[in-house]
């Protein structure tokens, strides 16, 4: 015949062991979960300042002058507010010039203009998009093949840069000669 107190003691011991295993598993799961969350937080750069600047432009003509119209846009894709520091923040316009000679093909850039951008926006809220558009006259030279627009945004020792190339619009509608007098007789 079994001794009842011995059974109770064994059962209590087993229960204690299972309880310890249960608690240890929960603590381990908590640490693994916390570690995973922290890893995702670090990798996802959730609260890191992140901006997505874009700049687009096109050329147009008015009274014989070549004008460059552009739109600079910044989207705050992070979850932190980003303060724009005006010092160093600018929109640059560069001319892409053809310096080719008979021996080799070569392209270079020349500064055309620099101007402040987003002066009225001191910061960008998370998820917010701000934009600024402008039109400015640009010099037209034979060797200029296109214009390059560059936007640089500075915030608390970080800078974001983006750029785009703007083609120069033809001084006459595409498919038509610049000078109507050059049209061959019989083609009119």
């Amino acid at each position, binding site marked *: 015949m079994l001794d009842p107190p011995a059974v109770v003691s064994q059962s209590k011991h087993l229960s204690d062991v299972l309880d310890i295993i249960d608690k240890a598993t929960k603590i381990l799961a908590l640490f693994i979960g916390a570690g995973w969350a922290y890893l995702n937080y670090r990798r996802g750069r959730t609260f890191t300042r*992140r*901006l*997505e*600047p*874009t700049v*687009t*432009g*096109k050329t147009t003509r008015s009274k014989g002058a070549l004008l460059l119209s552009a739109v600079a846009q910044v989207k705050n894709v992070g979850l932190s507010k980003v303060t724009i520091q005006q*010092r*160093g923040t*600018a929109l*640059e316009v560069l001319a892409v010039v053809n310096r080719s000679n008979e021996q080799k093909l070569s392209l270079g850039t020349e*500064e055309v*203009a*620099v*101007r*402040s951008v987003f002066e009225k926006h001191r910061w960008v809220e998370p998820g917010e998009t701000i934009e600024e558009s402008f039109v400015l006259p640009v010099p037209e030279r034979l060797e200029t093949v296109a214009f390059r627009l560059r936007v*640089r945004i*500075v915030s608390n*020792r*970080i*800078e*974001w*840069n*983006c*750029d*785009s*190339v*703007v*083609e120069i619009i033809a001084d006459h509608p595409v498919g038509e000669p610049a000078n109507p007098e050059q049209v061959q007789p019989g083609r009119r």
Partner: protein
Amino acid sequence: MSQVRVEQLPEDESRTDEIERRKEEQRQIEEDSKETERLEKAKEKQK
């Protein structure tokens, strides 16, 4: 028109200084041109 790149970097202080210098130059040119225009108009009025 084509988008070339977007990049996020630690701030290059020398570039910041260079951009500020050029912005100031540009501002000066614009101010000079406005002043010239103002003087031209004043001259025309005097005539």
